[in-house]
């Protein structure tokens, strides 16, 4: 090796080296331009492949669904049309209240629990807690139908069904809470890890206890990112069908009871698609538009809040 280098040093004078490098660069120029253009084309193709269907979803949902967005559709509950009045399908108020109830309660339980859990995982150092953190991360990928099955087997069958409650919103709440906890915990813990260590050191050097550092320094700093994670988890839960489909039953009346059957927007889409009534199937576009709008609004709201709280930070 070293002898090669020495030989090269002796053979090629500095001036010749410059000429060599420049000649090589000129010769390769055409090939380099071609390669970079080919790569650019690949990027454009992948953009099209991904975005044509993504845009087309929204375009179709808006195109087919916008005329469902009437106060009547939003404020009346679903009706089962009889054979003579096939178009008398009612609205979605039962599904809206069901969605707000189930996702709202699940969020009220999951958010504080996940934030506390993320703090515990963040602060912990032991091997056991390390294993728990890993476990939480794995649970993020838990198939949602499994959660549904678990709640059915471990909660509904032994407890709720035994008391006469076969389909309840409560079972759906439990299922969605279980689904959201790992998602939210992992996001919140990542947000805490994102806080530069110099701020907690500064607080500790002032004589702060760890709990104070967490509440006064880490949490305020991590809040925007935590909120983003929470909102993403929530919008995932709002759109979930599998974890609740076989737990909450259906409700054709608008009600706010956790012990009664409920319909949510995604399960109503499922049931409507299952029907052979063309009006019910067509109404899915309207429900889809409401669902998409809700998810967009959730995401945009969290973005606005995040941008606000990041203002004035360096």
């Amino acid at each position, binding site marked *: 090796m070293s002898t090669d280098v020495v030989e090269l040093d002796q053979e090629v004078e500095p001036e010749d080296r410059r000429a060599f490098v420049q000649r090589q660069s000129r010769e390769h120029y055409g090939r380099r331009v071609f390669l970079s253009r080919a790569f650019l084309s690949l990027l454009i193709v992948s953009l099209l492949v991904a975005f044509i269907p993504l845009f087309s979803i929204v375009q179709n949902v808006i195109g087919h669904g916008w005329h469902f967005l009437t106060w009547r559709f939003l404020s009346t509950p679903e009706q089962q049309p009889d054979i003579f009045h096939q178009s008398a399908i009612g609205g979605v108020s039962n599904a809206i209240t069901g969605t707000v109830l189930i996702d709202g309660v699940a969020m009220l339980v999951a958010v504080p629990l996940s934030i506390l859990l993320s703090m515990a995982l963040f602060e912990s*150092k032991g091997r056991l807690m390390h294993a728990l953190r890993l476990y939480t991360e794995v649970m993020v990928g838990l198939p949602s139908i499994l959660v549904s099955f678990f709640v059915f087997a471990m909660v509904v069958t032994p407890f709720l069904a035994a008391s006469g409650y076969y389909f309840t919103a409560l079972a759906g709440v439990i299922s969605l809470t279980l689904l959201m906890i790992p998602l939210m915990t992992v996001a919140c813990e990542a947000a805490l890890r994102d806080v*530069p260590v*110099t*701020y907690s*050191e*500064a*607080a*500790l*050097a*002032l*004589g*702060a*206890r760890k709990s*104070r550092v967490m509440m*006064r*320094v880490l949490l*305020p*700093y991590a*809040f925007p990112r935590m909120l983003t994670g929470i909102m993403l988890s929530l919008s995932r839960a709002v759109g979930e069908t599998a974890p609740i489909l076989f737990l909450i039953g259906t409700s054709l009346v608008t009600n706010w009871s956790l012990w009664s059957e409920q319909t949510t927007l995604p399960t109503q889409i499922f049931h409507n698609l299952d029907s052979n009534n063309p009006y019910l199937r067509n109404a899915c576009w309207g429900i889809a538009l409401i669902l998409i709008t809700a998810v967009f609004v959730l995401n945009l709201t969290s973005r606005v809040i995040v941008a606000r709280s990041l203002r*004035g*930070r*360096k």
Partner: protein
Amino acid sequence: MMDMSSVTNEMTEPFAPPTISIGSLVDQIPSNAPAETVLSLRDVAVTFNSKVAVRDVSFDVAKNRVTSMIGPSGSGKTTLLRAMNRLHDLTKGAVVSGTLELDGEDIYRGSIPTTLLRSRIGMVFQRPNPFPTMSIYDNVASGLRFNGIKKKAFLDDAVEHALTSAALWESVKGRMKAAAGTLSGGEQQRLCIARALAVEPEILLMDEPTSSLDPVSTQHIEDLMSTLKEIVTIVIVTHNMQQAARVSDDCAFLLMGEDRAGELIEFASTEKIFTNPSDKRTLDYIQGRFG
């Protein structure tokens, strides 16, 4: 800064405004009168996962003086500084051995709880790190609040006093609610000094406090130190030998040994270190032969 420098001269009369030449400065350093020891280090060593980072450190930090720690990168200056307020407790695998005594009490094996120790030994970090989610006022008040003080009147007074001591009050008094991130780098560092001072520490540890600042801001903070030592004992880590010569009364020189562990080579008055060091390695370092 006009009023600032007059204050400086009043309070420490032998200390003329800093000049560049070390020699002329050294003449003006007060003679090494016996001073009360506030923090004493005996055979202090810090290891990370049984790898020695710094060892064999013994010296006394004298009350109301500035003690500097100098030495090239890797000599363990910052590691040693962080051992003084137990910040290594946070690092897994870090072990501090030897004895560190604050007013005669062992800070690692004694009865002082770590959080209370840290409120007696404050710290200013290499990069200004005011809490970005807090206002200027809340930053300065944060240490007192962490320590359970809530009385508004006391906090207001303490915040003004600390900001005045850090020579920042005049420029921020009209915008106490502004986010700390709106200040310039030098102002942020003085805010951090004010934040540390508000807790009324006995010792202030400064870890290269000017290394990320421009020369003017550096000058402000150096000026500040000579007045601050009237109220708080200062230990400063610095890469900058001129700075050590300008601001400190005592000086510890550390060097990385052959096994890459830092060790104390010499501790003496700054005057002695810079004019007549006992160790040849110290002489080589201050003359710029290495490091």
